[in-house]
């Protein structure tokens, strides 16, 4: 066990996965990850091609070229950088390239804001990337190793991004257990691409596909997403067997079994929620948690199973689909439609706004009020708005 910064814990896991090509462009608060990787390369601790590009668009494009040539690749970005990558993310998934990326989470401009929320990753929802979200530094680090296993599985072959809350996880020092190299080597074999660019077998990658077949390609990606669900769960279990740590499969639960009120969220806020639940439980309140570990593919069955006996579920979104509601809330309602508890949506923590235990307690109180009245007064609401600023 070592006390280390979250970004460094991620860099250590990347190193242990022996990537061939890393390409990145610096952007706050992703910088400590790529600085640490740069140091490892400079000190000869990590033998890889580290390509320092002129933009995030090119960082992902370098990964596309390298991955298509048969290399294991890694990058990290956040916020505006992730937005700049947007079209390349679609392309990487469509080309079925198992690239792994740390998606440090940060708000989007305007107004410009360098602090945490999850709008950046949520806005990449439909790109075809598997999207995992880490609760703490340990999970953000371990998920890297899991991600390559998932991405490179021949039944999946899709890129994976790992959400990691900016500053809250990237810049905080926590005790972290690093995975020993020899165990990682056993857990994660060398990447064996099914097809790659080589004169030995001159294939055409990225052709133009007309209306008679385009839908079929999209369907195949969608099917691979479906197969990824089982793979993600299996890899989490295998990781537990190998390294002794487990964070759930597609979701995790906490005090959920007999809970009347469930809170559903993802990312670093999970820790705060668990603390709040401990206190609420001490007061005799039946409150539990559903942690979404995997946002895409969306764990519909797992959430339904976890939520079916609850009376209300409060969904916490550190993002907003402007003009509608939080993205998680929409997804959860679609899963629960006609089947489950009352669902309440809360927009909170945007641009780094603190989410405290009292915030969680207020949300639980609102959920309990809905249970008492049997209806949801306000479907989606902003939490802790400062009326004076408006």
């Amino acid at each position, binding site marked *: 066990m070592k006390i280390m910064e979250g970004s460094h814990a991620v860099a250590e896991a990347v190193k242990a996965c022996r990537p061939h090509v890393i390409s990145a462009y610096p952007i706050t608060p992703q910088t400590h990850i790529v600085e640490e990787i740069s140091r490892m390369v400079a000190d000869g601790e990590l033998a890889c*091609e580290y390509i320092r590009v002129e933009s995030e668009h*090119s960082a992902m494009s370098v990964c596309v070229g390298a991955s298509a040539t048969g290399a294991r690749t890694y990058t990290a970005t956040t916020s505006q950088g992730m937005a700049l990558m947007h079209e390349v993310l679609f392309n990487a998934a469509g080309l079925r390239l198992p690239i792994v990326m740390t998606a440090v989470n940060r708000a989007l401009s305007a107004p410009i804001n360098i602090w945490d929320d999850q709008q950046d990753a949520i806005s990449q929802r439909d790109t075809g990337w598997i999207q995992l979200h880490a609760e703490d530094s340990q999970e953000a680090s371990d998920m890297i190793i899991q991600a390559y296993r998932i991405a490179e599985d021949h039944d999946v072959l899709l890129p994976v991004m790992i959400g990691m809350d900016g500053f809250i996880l990237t810049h905080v020092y926590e005790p972290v257990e690093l995975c020993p190299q020899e165990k990682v080597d056993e857990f994660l074999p060398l990447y064996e691409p099914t097809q790659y660019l080589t*004169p030995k077998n001159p294939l055409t*990658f990225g052709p133009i596909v007309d209306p008679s077949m385009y839908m079929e390609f999209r369907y195949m990606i969608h099917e691979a997403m479906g197969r990824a669900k089982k793979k993600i769960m299996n890899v989490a279990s295998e990781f537990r067997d190998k390294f002794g740590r487990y964070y759930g499969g597609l979701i995790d639960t906490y005090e959920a079994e007999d809970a009347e009120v469930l809170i559903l969220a993802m990312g670093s806020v999970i820790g705060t929620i668990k603390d709040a639940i401990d206190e609420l439980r001490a007061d005799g309140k039946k409150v539990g948690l559903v942690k979404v570990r995997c946002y895409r593919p969306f764990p519909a069955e797992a959430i339904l199973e976890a939520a079916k006996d609850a009376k209300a579920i409060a969904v916490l979104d550190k993002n907003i689909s402007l003009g509608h509601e939080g993205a998680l809330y929409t997804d959860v309602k679609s899963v629960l439609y006609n089947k489950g508890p009352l669902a309440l949506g809360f927009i909170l923590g945007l641009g780094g706004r603190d989410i405290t235990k009292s915030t969680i307690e207020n949300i639980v109180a609102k959920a309990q009020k809905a249970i008492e009245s049997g209806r949801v007064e306000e479907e989606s609401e902003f939490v802790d708005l400062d009326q004076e600023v408006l």
Partner: protein
Amino acid sequence: MEELFAPGHRGCAGCGAAIAARLILKGAGKDIIAVSPTGCLEVISSPYPQSSWGVPWIHSLFENAAAVASGVEAALRALGREDEAKVLAIAGDGGTIDIGFGVLSGMLERGHDVTYICYDNEAYMNTGIQRSGSTPYGASTTTSPAGKISFGEDRPKKNAPAIAAAHGIPYVATASIAYPKDVIKKVKKAVEIEGPKYLQIHAPCCTGWGFDSSRTIEIGRLAVETALFPIYEMQNGKITSVKKIKRKPVEEYLKVQRRFRHLFEKEGGEEEIKKIQEIADGNAEQFGLDL
């Protein structure tokens, strides 16, 4: 010499880009990995499940060919496969000189061992002849049309080879499909030089420029003979060879293309032709083109 770019592609009859691709592959040989951005060449050569490419080839997006090629090259090195293939990017002028220019600059500056080849047909042909940074002065395109108060494109062609050379790369060259042996020779030479290389190959487009499909080579030759597309090589920043010409007046090149027709029909056109002649004169002087 092996044919590595198969016929049956969807290019127009007389397509200069297809001729360029065929010549480039003859020069580069089969032990390459080629990267192309979105554009005419990509569309005509890769209609799934068919492909004209007899070499491994990848198309990703419009502006990122240089970065994808960087990634291919980095992967070959990282995997210890650098002797397996030379890396080429083959891209149009829109993907190179406009939307992909920053990306190209990054690739050149980082020193990747990649031969980047721009086939220059002087506008966005795939989308219907819109002007690019490589469209020459006076050309009428669908977004720089000649009109009541316009003589078409009002800025000269961006000097991409000079900007490429300013990166301090070992090899920059121009060529024209009108001189096939020269194209093959330069590509062959470029792939053997280590480091980033930039080639710009003039590739007339009968559809976009407005000439009969039987005249592609003839038009390409006129561009060179009028000094509007000078042919030269630069090694380590110095001009090392120039194709000398017995110079023809620019009218001979302009009058045979629909895109310049307004210069001969509109009042004031003569003045514009003079300006184009000045551009040619400047090229001739700069590169010492005149025999």
